[in-house]
């Protein structure tokens, strides 16, 4: 593992994209940053601008309107960027999979590096997913 990769893994800045979500996954993601789980000890920060992001968290079902926004966000992100799909809706579509406005799970629109299933996934599951993502890349 080179110096560049090491620095990249030690400092993942996260940009959070919520699709048509029921907000449960959003709450669990915010839970990861609270005192109990504190992801900042791994160098993970929540940033406000996609230009600073290293990880794009996508949760919620992606409908036809979200699809263009998600593609735009992905194209505006500085590469290399890792994409993480969170929750059943992000991974497969969940209960919205057969809806008429559903535009496909996240991996049909942009390449996804890690899936964290669950409805919603617990903060522990999200941390486990991030650890696997860091060890994989």
């Amino acid at each position, binding site marked *: 593992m080179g110096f560049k990769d090491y620095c990249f893994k030690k*400092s993942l800045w996260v940009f959070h994209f919520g699709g048509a979500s029921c907000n449960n996954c959003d709450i669990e993601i915010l839970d990861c940053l609270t005192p109990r789980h504190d992801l900042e000890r791994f160098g993970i920060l929540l940033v406000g601008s996609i*230009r*600073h992001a*290293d990880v794009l968290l996508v949760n919620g079902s992606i409908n036809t309107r979200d699809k263009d926004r998600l593609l735009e966000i992905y194209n505006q992100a500085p590469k290399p960027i890792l994409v993480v799909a969170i929750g059943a809706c992000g991974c497969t579509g969940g209960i919205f999979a057969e809806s008429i406005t559903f535009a496909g799970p996240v991996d049909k629109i942009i390449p996804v590096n890690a899936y964290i299933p669950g409805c919603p996934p617990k903060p522990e599951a999200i941390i486990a997913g991030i650890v696997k993502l860091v060890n994989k890349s």
Partner: protein
Amino acid sequence: MAVNLFYFLVFPGLLFAATVGAFLSWFDRKITARVQFRKGPPLLQPFYDFFKLLLVKETILPKHGSPVIFLLAPVLSVFGATTAGIFILLPLFNITTGFRGDLLVIFYLLTIPSFSYIIGSLASANPLAAVGGSREMKLILSYELTFLLFIAGVIMKCGQEFNLYTIIQTQQEGSPFIGSISGVLLFIVGIFCIQAKLALVPFDMPEAEAEITEGIFIEYSGAAYALIKLAKYIMLFILPAFLIALLMNGFKLEGINILWAVLKVIMVVLILTLIRNTNPRIKIKQAVNFFLIWMNLLAVIALVLIAFGY
């Protein structure tokens, strides 16, 4: 020539100030985490952030902006911060004596980073960056007069000496300026000016994360953002060092006094961090009122007290 380059690039300049500033930035984040009952980032976290941005990430140029000015602004900010740092740190470390009137040069150089942030944000053609830029401009307008009054107070206290080295020597031979009523008032004024200069909460409206998503830095990515981070690290070291030089006796670099020097820097940064953690972000109008009315009033009271010899 070689000595000057060494001053600029290595010892009191770029490398040293940036390294110390990065550790202070870690300290700031760690204290923030401890205040919120979190564990906080590891010691080398600022270096990971900086090298990740510099080496790994791609730099994206805005489509409708002016790319040259957009990329020049971070370079200018690092240059301004480093130059100001040299003028502050050379007399502080007792290397050279500076020159007569260097306080005014330092005062102007310290505004260059803020101005280059404004130029860069306006060159990016992003509406949120424009909002951030205009807020930063108002913030500069409000705190500059107070900062000038603060420096004027120190100059008056020293007996009309415009030289940073003389001010430090006067304090080391007598007593530090903070040990009097006017000194304490000047210290309060100076701390709030530094807080606004560093754009920390409560004065972080130019880069309000939740509101205008990093504001002036919204379009910066990759190496350009790494340079901005570098300028911020340098500013986080040199502004407390400037305050220590003006009011708190400067540094003495022999024996146990080195420990005192380190503790003074850490204490000033700790005060800044605690203010940042116990206050909400205020509106720009409130910030202008705060500086133009209350802080100026405090500074003028300090000036009057100095004139009467307190």
